[in-house]
């Protein structure tokens, strides 16, 4: 059995067609796009085409609204810092408790600098309360930044509606859409979203390339200065090959968006149902009715995620976990904590994330090994009764270690 890759929310394989589109920009058209000679004369056209390919995928009005950056994190940081720089009198930011660290880290830092950060909580299914959001909007808020879809659970937030509300209150709106672009059809021209972040490597383009969409007319202050590139909005010589690659990847993503929402979704659903039906004390986290088509995050109670991943890896299956151990941090994932998932389950969450390269056969292979992996680890668990093959009665009381 060849290895099975189900960690596509972490990163994806670069599509062969993307690689092919990039190669001439390393070997032939390697000139600096700013130069006036034949090594560069095709490059500007390549960049222009890539811009249009990205534009088509996200449905924005102008291709000049696309700013190429080095990654999703740069796009996020640029968006937040730009918003506060433009509006020095506004000292508040609204975000959520379940954002990606690329957002939360910047907000934490701004909090130290005196900004007030409102972090919207989520319910047990990972959903936001729009009423409390509305109450937070005011003329003191510089920016709302809310992810389009959550990277761990796939839960989709109502960003289009939230952007309308922000716009009505005169507040700028940014969304981190790195997980959503290519999976959710979008038409940004019809929304009030001011800024949006894309990461190339989440949609079969290479790592090290991203996009900040900036609606025409949105006030903006560049983060990187000292060059005319990207119309002065992001200085630094263009990563031409990767930009061209990202353009191609966006074109392919647009072609496959229906496939993602039918075939890929069918694989995800089959895996999810198979696991939850077969394995007792396992459950799916997030908003089951409103999720990315490729993502499922399943909690296996009474065992720990890293152990599961190591056994999966031995079986040739790649996934990821919200357990603390996998990241070397102290707590299980902040997303699981925000949803109030109990610790004994939060530490045992496994995220399977699909792409168009996966097959139904692979799903069946995972379903074959998963019950044994869980059973093996539960045999070792102090919360599990090996004799009856059930959790011990009152697990929290039966095993109450001294915590240091």
């Amino acid at each position, binding site marked *: 059995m060849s290895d099975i890759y189900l960690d596509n929310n972490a990163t994806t394989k670069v599509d062969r067609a993307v690689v092919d589109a990039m190669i001439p920009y390393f070997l032939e058209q390697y000139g600096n796009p700013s130069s006036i000679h034949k090594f560069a004369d095709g490059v500007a056209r390549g960049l222009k085409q890539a811009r249009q390919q990205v534009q088509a995928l996200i449905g924005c009005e102008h291709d000049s609204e696309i700013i190429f950056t080095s990654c999703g994190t740069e796009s996020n940081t640029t968006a937040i810092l730009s918003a506060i720089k433009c509006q020095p009198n506004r000292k508040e930011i609204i975000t959520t408790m379940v954002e990606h660290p690329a957002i939360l880290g910047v907000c934490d830092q701004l909090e130290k600098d005196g900004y007030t950060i409102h972090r919207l909580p989520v319910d047990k299914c990972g959903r936001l309360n729009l009423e409390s959001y509305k109450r937070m909007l005011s003329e003191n808020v510089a920016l709302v930044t809310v992810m389009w879809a959550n990277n761990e659970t796939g839960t989709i937030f109502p960003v289009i509606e939230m952007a309308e509300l922000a716009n009505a209150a005169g507040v700028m709106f940014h969304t981190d859409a790195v997980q959503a672009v290519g999976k959710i059809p979008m038409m940004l021209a019809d929304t009030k979203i001011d800024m949006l972040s894309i990461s190339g490597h989440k949609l079969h383009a290479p790592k090290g390339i991203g996009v900040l969409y900036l609606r025409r007319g949105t006030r903006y202050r560049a983060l990187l200065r000292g060059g005319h590139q990207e119309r002065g909005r992001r200085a630094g010589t263009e990563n031409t090959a990767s930009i061209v690659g990202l353009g191609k990847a966006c074109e392919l993503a647009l072609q496959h968006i229906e496939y993602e929402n039918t075939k890929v979704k069918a694989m995800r659903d089959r895996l999810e149902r198979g696991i939850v039906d077969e394995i007792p004390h396992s459950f799916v986290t997030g908003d089951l009715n409103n999720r990315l088509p490729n993502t499922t995050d399943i909690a296996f109670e009474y065992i*720990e995620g890293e152990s599961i991943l190591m056994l999966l890896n031995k079986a040739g299956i790649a996934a990821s976990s919200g*357990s*603390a151990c996998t990241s070397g941090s*102290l707590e299980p994932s902040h997303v699981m904590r925000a949803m109030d998932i109990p610790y004994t389950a939060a530490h045992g969450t496994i995220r399977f994330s699909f792409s168009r390269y996966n097959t139904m056969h692979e799903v069946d292979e995972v379903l074959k090994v998963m019950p044994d992996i869980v059973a093996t680890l539960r045999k070792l668990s102090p919360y599990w009764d090996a004799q009856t093959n059930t959790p011990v009665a009152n697990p929290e009381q039966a095993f109450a*270690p001294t915590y240091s």
Partner: protein
Amino acid sequence: MWDYSDKVKEHFFNPKNAGAVVEANATGEVGSISCGDALRLTLKVDPETEIILESGFQTFGCGSAIASSSVLTEIIKGMTLDEALKVTNQDIADHLEGLPPEKMHCSVMGREALQAAIANYRGEEWRDDHEEGALVCKCFAIDAVMIEEMVWANKLRTVEDVTNFTKAGGGCAACHEDIEAILEKVLAEKGEKFDPSICSKPEDKQKPAAPEKIAAVKTPLTNLQRIKKIEEVLESLRPALMADGGDVELVEVIGNTAYVNMTGACNGCQMAAMTIAGIQQRLMEVMGEFIKVVPASEMSKLVNIA
């Protein structure tokens, strides 16, 4: 994925002594907030000889927690309780051919479960002696709680102070921002302000890091005074070393050269040289005279600067 040794993988994929021991007469249950791991260790102890006849583990935890538990049950089998009490977390890590710094606490959890089980057998109450915080220094596996405690106890003011007392920040230096944040926080709690412009060079007389209880000495010392003073200073540094599973003992003082033995985890640790440099720095600050600290193994060469 972590870079686990083959030994860790071996114990994880084929754990030894999994499950509870039947008719166990000693049980230790501990958990580590880091990783959310928890371990129950059960032992069957011969009441006559106090020899551990059987040991078993049940662990909720990651790969290295399961491997640490498994190897621990192997290490202690056949030991007397007194022998078992001497097993350190470093012993567990060594048997596993090392653990990543982020995972050292898994070995600490093993040692604590063992101590708790023995206390349980003897009818004593086991009390945990340390609290664990977020890992700050990845080079030397120093966590935030440890740094905070040392900043409090020793009135540390600068990143350099913290490095001298805990080793944290003495390697790749990437954690200096985090150490500054801890200094800022603790000093604010004490009603002081962290000033990054203070430097801790020995000649800087402004440096306020000397602990109160050990007053700086001004007049020249007799050899007896010097030895006493050195002992005092070593005593004040001991908690930091012991937290790492190590210790230091003074072997001999000849002139202004102090010969020391680094023991426990310090013994053979790559950082021993740096620790010795830290001790020397500290001694000079407190005693106000030049002191050279040398490993006792060098004594045969009788290096004496004086």
